């Protein structure tokens, strides 16, 4: 179709100058001279989360999306420099509170690597179980957000209802619904009793049953498939080039999972698969995570079945091997890491979490803590995948990535 330019003087709207927008004025002028249109989605928009998306559209087609993140930046890396190592444990969980155990685990493993602490087997199983429970919770949360972005309110309420089971399991194990700070250097805070483990085992079976009805109403729903299929496609090469991580990389056909590549805790002793898909569109980004829920529930069951008896806190840390209460500050407040840099990779629910602790070897606070969260890593791929799609697809692609601004901003 031939386009006809109309020579009408167009002035950029005033608010593009008065609001703080991280794009040069020349860019705005260029947009308006070339018959395009700038739409600011967010930060108060119901479908944007805590961020602003500067969308350049021609007609209904997105030409370019410039992200403006940082609305929930809490300067965690700087805060971490002024606190004791164990005081940082609650802090590093905060980027993604649903995914608390995975964020916690990465930080603790960096400390354990530095201090050469041997973690008891039972503690490893409990940690793996917690990490997988949090993964299921996060995937359910993201599925709910995707559903409400598509206008499917039942698909929003059901995963949130299901997530209550995960929260209840975490309450029974740790005493808190999500940010439990349960994992400490040398193990976990407390032992878990048999009845709780039995409850969690039954809960995973009950959840699988309810996920089937969720599959009927949302995952196999023709309107959902119509909205998500062939939308926001990232090919394998693009996904690698833009540094996409986690389930979104696996949805583009790259079989990479930190849990398989560099196994930590007890992942190498359990039987599980990496869900992979080749299409790389929004629907398969969602499906990969749905399949991961099934794998994670299976991992949780295996953990409970194979969990050995024994201590849950390393004997290097405390005398009492089943409960840290009363001895927590005595044994852990004065830890000093040897000088050097300690980096761990952890597979969080949304992708690879990188923790890097730099210690000067003499102070009881870290010299520098570097946190790279998956949201920040796949932001570029997320923006690139929206090019050439329609404006109405912006929310669908957003939901399919499960982008969580607090996690990316840290």
């Amino acid at each position, binding site marked *: 179709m031939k386009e006809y330019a109309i020579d009408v003087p167009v002035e950029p709207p005033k608010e593009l100058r008065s609001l703080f927008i991280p794009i040069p004025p020349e860019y705005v002028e260029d947009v308006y001279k070339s018959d395009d249109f700038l739409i600011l989605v967010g930060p108060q928009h119901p479908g944007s989360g805590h961020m602003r998306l500067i969308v350049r559209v021609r007609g209904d087609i997105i030409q370019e999306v410039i992200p403006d993140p940082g609305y929930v930046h809490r300067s965690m890396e700087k805060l971490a420099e002024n606190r004791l190592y164990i005081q940082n444990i609650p802090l590093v969980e905060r980027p993604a509170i649903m995914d608390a155990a995975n964020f916690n685990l990465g930080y603790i493993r960096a400390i354990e690597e530095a201090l050469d602490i041997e973690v008891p087997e039972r503690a490893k199983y409990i940690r793996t179980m917690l990490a997988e429970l949090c993964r299921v919770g996060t995937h359910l949360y993201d599925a709910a957000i995707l559903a409400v972005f598509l206008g*499917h309110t039942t698909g929003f309420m059901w995963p949130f209802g299901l997530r209550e089971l995960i929260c209840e399991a975490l309450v029974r194990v740790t005493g808190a619904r999500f940010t439990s700070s349960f994992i400490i250097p040398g193990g976990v805070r407390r032992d878990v009793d048999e009845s709780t483990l039995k409850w969690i085992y039954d809960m995973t079976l009950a959840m699988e049953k309810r996920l089937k009805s969720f599959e009927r*109403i*949302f995952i196999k729903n023709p309107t959902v498939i119509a909205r998500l299929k062939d939308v926001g496609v990232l090919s394998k090469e693009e996904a690698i080039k833009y540094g996409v991580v986690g389930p979104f990389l696996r949805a583009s056909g790259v079989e990479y999972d930190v849990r398989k590549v560099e196994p930590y805790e007890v992942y190498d002793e359990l039987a599980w698969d990496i869900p992979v898909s080749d299409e790389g569109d929004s629907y398969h980004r969602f499906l990969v995570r749905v399949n991961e829920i099934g794998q994670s529930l299976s991992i949780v069951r295996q953990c409970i079945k194979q969990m050995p008896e024994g201590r849950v806190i390393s004997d290097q840390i405390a005398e009492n091997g089943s409960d840290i209460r009363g001895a927590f500050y005595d044994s852990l407040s004065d830890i000093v890491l040897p000088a050097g840099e300690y980096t761990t990779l952890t597979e969080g629910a949304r992708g690879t979490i990188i923790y890097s602790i730099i210690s000067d070897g003499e102070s009881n606070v870290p010299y520098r803590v570097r946190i790279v969260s998956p949201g920040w890593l796949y932001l570029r791929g997320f923006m690139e995948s929206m090019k050439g799609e329609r404006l109405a697809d912006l929310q669908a692609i957003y939901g399919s990535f499960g982008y969580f601004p607090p996690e990316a901003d840290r």
Partner: protein
Amino acid sequence: MFDVVQILNYLFEIFSSNMMDIPLIAPIVDFLMQIPLLNILVALILWKPFFAVVIMPGLGVLMLYLLYIVWYERKLTARVQWRVGPLEVARPIRGAIQTLADGIRYFFQEAIVHREAHRPYFVQLPLLAFIPVLLPILFIPAGSAVGIYTPYSIQLIVTFLALIPITIVAIGWAANSRFAYIGSVREAFIYFAYEVPFIIAVISMIFLYSSGDAYVAVEKQSMIPGALLNPIAFIVYIIAMLMATSRLPFDIPEADQEIAFGPFVEYSGILFGLVMVLAYEKLYIMTLLFTILFLGGWSGIYCPLLGDLNGPLWLFIKTVVVISILVIVRSIYARYRLDQALRIGWTSMLALSIMALIVGGVVGVWLS
């Protein structure tokens, strides 16, 4: 003075010559008719054209229906979604007056008119939008009660229904906001997508009954309802109804997550209350027509105690039952994209409606 009495007497003659005959309330009516001046009022209320337009199935029950359907939709959706729904306002009746409470709150809330809006139109249009909603009621017959009798009532109802999207587009224009603008454009697109198949489906039913007269349509459905006579038109009409009233999966002009309630994004207070119920009113009118065309209209089990009220009551009950079934789509479907909805409208729905036209012609010949 003499003139006034004469005019009143003249009016009373007109009203009382064509009154609703309801045996159930006949003693009360007879008693009130003996009181001077009050008898004119009673005669006016029970005057058939007035009764049809203002009481039933017109304005009065429309308000009742609005109070009911908003609550019912929320309650049904909540039940599907493992929730409770509105409960706190009037706990003993499960929060049934929640809509009334919301209405009162809207009424006392400040209605903000933003600086960029075209102020006169922005404030007027929610009220003006009622005109095309209420005009079809004039021509919708319910048994012997009818506002204006015409043999072209079905065509007239469809014509006035087609005016409603124009007011919505005008609202979006007057709001002068980006999201309202996108919403108006989407509304215009969707309008073109459903209107053609909708009108063809109605024409197929007019072919079938060989008349645009609602009375003839209801009479010809005395044995078999229209839904069985022309099932294809039935399906097309339901889908067009969902599109026309912005129900999911065609909730495109008002998509909350994409364009934040579209044309109505800038409204607040009672003005928002007015535009919010616009789609529900349109749904009501379209379902009245749907009941007349496909479900046998006002025919039902005759109760001698109700007399003339039988017709309007059956029409209203059928309409509300149909709407109560329709609102469940909200908890089942996600939203289509605009281009997908347009594709559905211009390909499968158009093809189906043309098939319905053929079926309507064939069955119409067989019926006559």
